[in-house]
Every structure is written in structure tokens, then in C-alpha cells.
């Protein structure tokens, strides 16, 4: 009788289904995984250390680059923590704009996740469809901030500027005729809000399309159902948040339980899973997309009828308007101070959390009264989720490891920070 030994293989750090730079050491018995040891840190940029050397305002763009598929949500967590320490209030319109863009970001994240997860499992087409919708959402980002991904749009005290009245349009090129261009520009004739409203009208139909492709698909179910099951007790012990926790049947959503901004005034539902497997997490996220769509519509309705400031008028924190600056000495000094030295945050500590698309994104800031954070700790949801990988993949086949990695919704920008 030959002695049979477990076989150890290396997976990554460059592997298409590792969602970036994950290295896994898998101990196998035949094709069954006995133990998985994730090695992370290949994308470690020491964001938290860099933040200690930058002023509070300079740190905002670093937040975009954490979870680089849900940019504005990261900014949101950061500005909330700064605002808590400063004790300033944000104008209502800015709060609605933030909520609307949080939900747009959630759609972007879930679309990215859905496409990638389907691709991992072997369905190529979904990826192409989800990226078609993401393109429209990137255009919203571009219209409002000038950048398609790393927006740096939320600022302590509000948002950088009000929603624009026009949408950027396609121009005629050698490969696109005038007729084609005008068709593409058809829904870009009005303001940004018109464009988003047009999107929210189309979007539920798109989600139906994805569901037609996946939800009852036999292969999809064979690959996802009962793969990576996590019980509610395990989920709590392992520090799960967001769709991962809800997939296990725990009804917990910060937007409902600890509402920030204006979420308590909006009407939406929280989907909850039953079995805690990859398939339930898929269903939860798909339903979340529909709910986000509802929230966006409510925000549009409110924003249309309520013009107003989008930035606090506390010039010690937010820059004064350009016109005032040209005429007033006081405003000029404020502007100079803000962009040379930056604003000072009172000594203390604060933790602010938002319901990010992946889970609870928290920012813990310790300030000693300087113009830079003394310590900034980013609580990334993916970090807690990935550490439980061993629990989830034990006893599954190698191919299931890929499914489970996909269902965690990993982005290494936030895990490695």
C-alpha cells in the first residue's frame, strides 16, 4: 500500500480569478481542499501611514484608491469621521447627493462583482452586460467630479460642487457617424439628474436580464448552491458585515440600524438570505441593486425640488466661494490657510462607519489637534471576510475555492490598504 500524502499547491499571486493579488497556499487531498492559507499584502501601500503625513483634505483622494470599485463610499466613511471630530453639519442637499452617489457606487460595485463572479464560474456574457451599465455610471461620476473613477468628490463639510446642468456628450469621430453619435447622445440632452433618472428607468430591466441568465441557470446553481456555507453564529464570530452577513440570514444593515445622512427618510428594504451559501449571497446582492435603484429615484425626486448649498459655510473647514474670495480679505485668508496649512481638527478620536457595498467600511481617526491625522485606521470589510476563507473552502473542491473567492467580493485595494 503506497503512502498517500497531502499535496500543497500555490495559487496566485497572479491568477485571473484571484481578483488581484491574492496568494493562496492550498493543501489538497486529491482534489479536496484540506486547508487554505491566504497570503495578502502584495498591494500594501501603507495608506494609513501616508495619511499621517498629509493634511485632512489631501487624504481624501487616498480613500478612492482603497476599494477601487466603490470609490465614493470610501470617501464617505472618511469624511464622516472627520466631520464627527470637527462637529460640523452638512447641508441637506449635500447629504442627499452623497446618498445618491453612495447608491450609484453600490450599483457599480455590485455590477463589477456580478460580472466577475459569473466569469469565475464560467459565464462570459454577464461580464459584458454589466460593464455596459457601469459605463453609464462612470459617466455620472465624470459629470459630477471630472474623474471617471477616483472622484475625490466628497469633502469634509459637503461635496465639492453641485450637480451639473449638462451631461458630457460624445463627439463625432472617424469611426462614429453623426447619426450614431446623436443616438448615443439622446439621453444626455438634459441635466445629470435627467440622465440618472433615465438610467434608473432602464436599470430594473437590465437586472431582469441578468437574472434570466443566472438565477435559474442549472450550471450556475450547481456551482453556487451549498458552496461556502456560513451559519449566522459563524458569521458573527468571524466579523462579517454587509451582504456576507445578510446572506447568512442576519438582518443587519447600517443604513437602517444606525442611519447616517438621510437614510432614515428613504424607503427601501433589506434582503436577507436563508442558507448562507454563495447562491444566497448572490440573491442578496442582486436584490440590493434593485433597492439601490429605488433609493436613487427617491433622491432624484428630492434633489429636483430642493436647491441649496452643497458645502458648509464654515470657512474654517470648507473653501469660501470664488466670488467672495476676490472681494473679501477674510475669505482670501481662509482660502490661503485651507490650502497651505489645512484645517485643524480638535483633539479626540472618532469612529465612523458606513454600509459600503462590501460591508461595514469604518474609519477610526485619532487627532491630537494638528492639521494631519495622528492615526488613521481603515476598517476594510474584505479583510475580515477573507480571513475566514479557510472555514469556507475546507472540504470543497479547488474549483469551488474560485466560486467562494468570487462570492466574498474581494478587492485588494482595501484589504492590503
Amino acid at each position: 500500500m503506497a503512502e498517500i500524502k497531502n499535496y500543497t499547491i500555490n495559487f496566485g499571486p497572479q491568477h485571473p480569478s484571484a481578483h488581484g493579488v491574492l496568494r493562496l497556499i492550498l493543501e489538497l487531498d486529491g482534489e479536496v481542499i484540506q486547508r487554505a492559507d491566504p497570503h495578502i499584502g502584495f498591494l500594501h501601500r501603507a495608506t494609513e501611514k501616508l495619511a499621517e503625513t498629509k493634511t485632512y483634505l489631501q487624504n481624501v483622494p487616498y480613500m478612492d484608491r482603497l476599494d477601487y470599485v466603490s470609490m465614493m463610499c470610501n470617501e464617505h466613511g472618511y469624511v464622516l469621521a472627520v466631520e464627527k471630530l470637527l462637529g460640523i453639519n452638512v447641508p441637506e442637499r449635500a447629504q442627499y447627493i452623497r446618498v445618491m452617489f453612495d447608491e450609484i457606487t453600490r450599483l457599480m460595485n455590485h455590477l463589477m462583482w456580478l460580472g466577475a463572479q459569473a466569469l469565475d464560474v464560467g459565464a462570459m456574457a454577464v461580464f459584458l452586460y454589466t460593464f455596459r451599465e457601469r459605463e453609464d455610471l462612470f459617466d455620472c461620476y465624470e459629470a459630477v467630479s471630472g474623474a471617471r473613477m477616483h472622484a475625490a468628490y466628497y469633502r469634509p463639510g459637503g461635496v465639492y460642487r453641485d450637480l451639473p446642468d449638462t451631461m458630457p456628450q460624445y463627439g463625432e469621430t472617424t469611426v462614429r457617424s453623426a447619426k450614431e453619435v446623436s443616438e448615443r447622445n439622446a439621453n444626455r440632452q438634459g441635466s445629470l439628474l435627467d440622465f440618472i433618472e433615465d438610467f434608473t428607468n432602464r436599470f430594473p430591466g437590465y437586472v431582469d436580464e441578468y437574472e434570466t441568465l443566472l438565477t435559474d441557470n442549472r450550471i450556475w446553481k450547481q456551482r453556487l448552491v451549498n458552496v461556502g456555507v456560513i451559519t449566522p453564529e459563524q458569521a458573527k464570530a468571524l466579523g462579517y458585515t454587509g451582504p456576507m452577513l445578510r446572506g447568512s440570514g442576519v438582518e443587519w444593515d447600517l443604513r437602517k440600524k444606525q442611519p447616517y445622512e438621510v437614510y432614515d427618510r428613504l424607503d427601501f428594504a433589506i434582503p436577507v438570505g436563508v442558507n448562507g451559501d454563495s447562491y444566497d449571497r448572490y440573491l442578496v446582492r442582486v436584490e440590493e441593486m434593485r433597492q439601490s435603484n429605488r433609493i436613487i429615484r427617491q433622491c432624484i425626486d428630492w434633489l429636483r425640488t430642493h436647491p441649496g448649498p452643497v458645502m458648509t459655510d464654515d470657512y474654517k473647514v470648507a473653501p469660501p466661494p470664488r466670488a467672495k474670495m476676490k472681494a473679501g480679505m477674510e475669505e482670501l485668508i481662509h482660502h490661503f490657510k485651507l490650502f497651505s496649512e489645512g484645517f485643524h481638527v480638535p483633539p479626540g478620536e472618532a469612529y465612523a462607519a458606513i454600509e459600503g457595498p462590501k460591508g461595514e467600511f469604518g474609519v477610526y481617526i485619532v487627532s491630537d489637534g494638528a492639521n494631519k491625522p495622528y492615526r488613521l485606521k481603515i476598517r476594510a470589510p474584505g479583510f475580515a471576510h477573507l480571513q475566514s476563507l479557510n472555514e469556507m473552502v475546507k472540504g470543497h473542491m479547488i474549483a469551488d475555492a474560485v466560486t467562494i473567492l468570487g462570492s466574498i467580493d474581494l478587492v485588494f485595494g482595501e484589504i492590503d490598504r
Partner: protein
Amino acid sequence: MDKALQLQQALQDTLGDLVESMTLALGEITVVVDSARYLPVMQALRDAPGLQFDELIDLCGMDYSEYGNAAWKGPRFAVVTHLLSLLHNWRVRVRVFVPEAANVVIASVTEIWPAANWFEREAFDLYGILFDGHPDLRRILTDYGFIGHPFRKDFPVSGYVEVRYDEEQKRVVYQPVTIEPRELTPRVIREDDYGRR
């Protein structure tokens, strides 16, 4: 009754003299615990019926050596934990200063919350805080074979070594850093009445 006050009362009832101080600021409660009582307090926070912090949200290291303008008195390192109770819907922050000795050692809470595993590895990697009782205390974020603890305040932002590809040796080599960190905006702490006189 206000949620935070209610929690403060519950903490007072359960923990009583076990904690060094309890402060309520900005709607958040911070509990400071002596390192000798760290584990019993954490156990009580999870298990006491009135508290039931069933989720560990975050655990991080802190280096207080350059805090404020005056020299820092007291232990240099601390471990800060954020806990969440799904049942009662409240949060608490626990800070424990790590006693100064030859090694910076504190008890591990992985037995209470398995989620602490990677967070403690991270605090060890970045700050060199050792967690007694941790099942697998390896570096997590820094490079294989990395030397030092980069988030300590005396570690330069640029680090000590850099890598480059060496054309002659045909491999990647480590060498001392060739860049110097620049500080464009100096760090300043103004007096309280600055700009208001």
C-alpha cells in the same frame, strides 16, 4: 433614554471597577482597561447579558510616542478595539495600553472573537505588539523577510530598503533607499485660541 447613556449605565453595572476609565465623547464610549484585566473585561463584554458585543469590528495598534506637542508620558503602545453588538445595536471602543517591558506583549482575544486573528497579526506586523495566545502570529501585510515595524512613529515613511532589477546580476536586488522623504506641509498644532484673538 439616550442609547449612549443607556450603554454607559450597562457598562458601569457589569464592569464596575474592572475598567480604568470610561468616557463618553462625540456619542462614542471609550473604555480604558488595564492590561492585567484585559481578557476578563473582553470576555464580559461579549458574554454579559446586558452587553453582548458579539462582533469584533476592528482591532488596531497605536503608537502614542509623538502624540501632541509635549513629550508623551505613559506607555507608548496601545491596542484599540471596536466592538459591535448586533442585538442591542451599540458600539464600544476598548483601549488597553501595553505595558513597557523588553517585549511589547498583550493577551490575544482570538479565543473570544476568532475575527481578531488577522487584526492582531496586522498590529504585530505594523507595530511589533506581540499577542500572547495567538495561534499563528506571522507578518501579514509587509514583504516576506521584512525587517522592522513600519507604522511605528520612528520608522521613516520611505522605509530603509528599496528593490530594483539589477541588469548585471539578472535578478531583483535590495539596496538602501535612494530617496529622501519630503514634507510639503509641516505638521503643526496651534494653540487653542489661534485665529480667534
